[in-house]
């Protein structure tokens, strides 16, 4: 059954006294004297949520690797593990998961003692759609996506991440945000400022 819904017509008295105008004007004037809700972008920046899909990075070996997966993969490929270097085990699963596989250039190297180690890991982010499939595929929690989203650059060359940049991003991330709870909305002060009027309850408030 179709329910017929009409607009409530404006009565003649309302029209003559501009009551509909006054209703709208009262709303705008109330908003005009409230606090602004914007961020002054280049001077203030919001922290994206932890699951934000920004530039990629490589987490480094620091003793917090997912176990037993990491040890299993290391044993399987006979990887030479260096603390402070990338956790990558050169399994190429990220490249397999990627919708644009030519984005990745991954090469391993065999050391004289028979162990293997990562040699090159280049990502051409010009081709990347930031879908996050490579991150899901990574078995050792090495490849991840950081909160770096200001990715404008002067040349195309700057869009290619090599292993040094990836490790740098990873170290920076592990220093800053590794211990954050893995939720989409975290309780940082900046975002609380954005939503202060919605009466959301934050963890901090309950504490």
């Amino acid at each position: 059954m179709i329910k017929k819904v009409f607009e409530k017509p404006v009565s003649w008295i309302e029209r003559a006294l501009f009551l509909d105008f006054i209703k709208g004007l009262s709303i705008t004037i109330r908003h005009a004297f409230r606090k602004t809700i914007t961020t002054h972008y280049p001077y203030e920046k919001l922290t994206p949520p932890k699951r934000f899909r920004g530039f990629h990075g490589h987490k480094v070996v620091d003793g917090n690797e997912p176990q037993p997966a990491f040890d299993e993969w290391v044993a399987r490929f006979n990887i030479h593990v260096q603390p402070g270097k990338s956790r990558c085990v050169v399994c190429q699963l990220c490249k397999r998961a990627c919708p644009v596989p030519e984005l990745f250039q991954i090469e391993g190297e065999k050391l004289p003692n028979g162990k293997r180690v990562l040699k090159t890991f280049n990502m051409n982010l010009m081709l990347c759609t930031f879908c996050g499939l490579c991150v899901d595929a990574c078995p050792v929690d090495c490849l991840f996506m950081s909160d770096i989203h200001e990715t404008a650059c002067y040349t195309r060359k700057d869009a290619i991440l090599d292993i040094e940049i990836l490790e740098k991003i990873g170290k920076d991330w592990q220093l800053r945000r590794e211990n954050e709870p893995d939720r989409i909305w975290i309780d940082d002060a900046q975002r609380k400022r954005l939503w202060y009027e919605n009466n959301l309850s934050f963890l901090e408030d309950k504490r």
Partner: protein
Amino acid sequence: MEGLVANLIVIAIKIVVILLITLGIGAFLTWVERKVAAHIQRRPGPMVVGWHGLLQPLADGLKLLTKEDLFPRYGNRFLYYLAIVMALVPATLTFAVVPFGPEFTLFGITVKPILTDVNIGILLVFALGSMAVYAIALAGWASNSKYALIGSMRKAGIVVSYEVVITFAVMGPIILAGTLSTYSIVQAQIEQKLWYIWVQPMAFVVYMFAVLAEMGRVPFDVQEAEAELTTGFTVEYGGMKFGIFPLVEWYIEGLALSAIAVVLFLGGWSPLNIPFVGFIDPLFFLGPLSPFLWFALKVALVFLFILWLHWTLPRYRIDQITETAWKVMLPLTFINLVFTAIVAPLIWR
């Protein structure tokens, strides 16, 4: 001979002061408008250039001046440039008959703070106001662009309708004051101890609507209707030439019409009014400066009210606008005229 020279010097000073005030404040009002619009939308607006973006008009002007000067291929170059002059000059000329305050004596010379106290001041205002439509029609025609032409046609239609309405709306105050001179109208209000808004509320509302239409403000901004006409008749103008049209239409003309509204309905430079009893002046401590401040305050309030309307209301369709003008506003002004004719003898006494 000496009297003539002194007069000429006084007039020259008046012209310079009025030009500085109108063009300076006109540029500054772009900042005011952006701030008001921003805060209504919960944004801070310009914040970077100067304290709270106070130097933003200067930066905008510099940017507009350094832009490339483009001209549409089959446009009419003479009319294209004439339109700018036709827009700027009448709007600025309107300030010649705006009285800023009462007479005062300075160094033994009596000065009226009005450029020319002609006895047909109000008529001059509306004659110059209708000149604005030439500028817009010429701009639309000379640009050789369909958007510009449609925009200018719409604006011409609105202005033609609302010129009639505004003229009949101001008839009430003119009858009550018994004069067309802007200076004398204010003096009549002070002598009768009555702001004409108390007896002419309907005329005031109609006048405000007509002002919105003449300024091309929301809800009557169909001539620029950015969703359908990009920016209307200014589409083919670039750089400072583009900057002058909104400056004139929105700020200088808006300021002039707000000032005329204050003169006609809100008692010009007189302080707060209790009808038929007298005036209360909370700013008495400023002495001779208080009338000027009152005038500035009232004009600012009327102008801010127009801005507030602009950033609240949606846009009417062109047929609704002209329909309102001819079918609602014009009969209302006729009723108001009849009412005025009944009330006038009581007020004249």
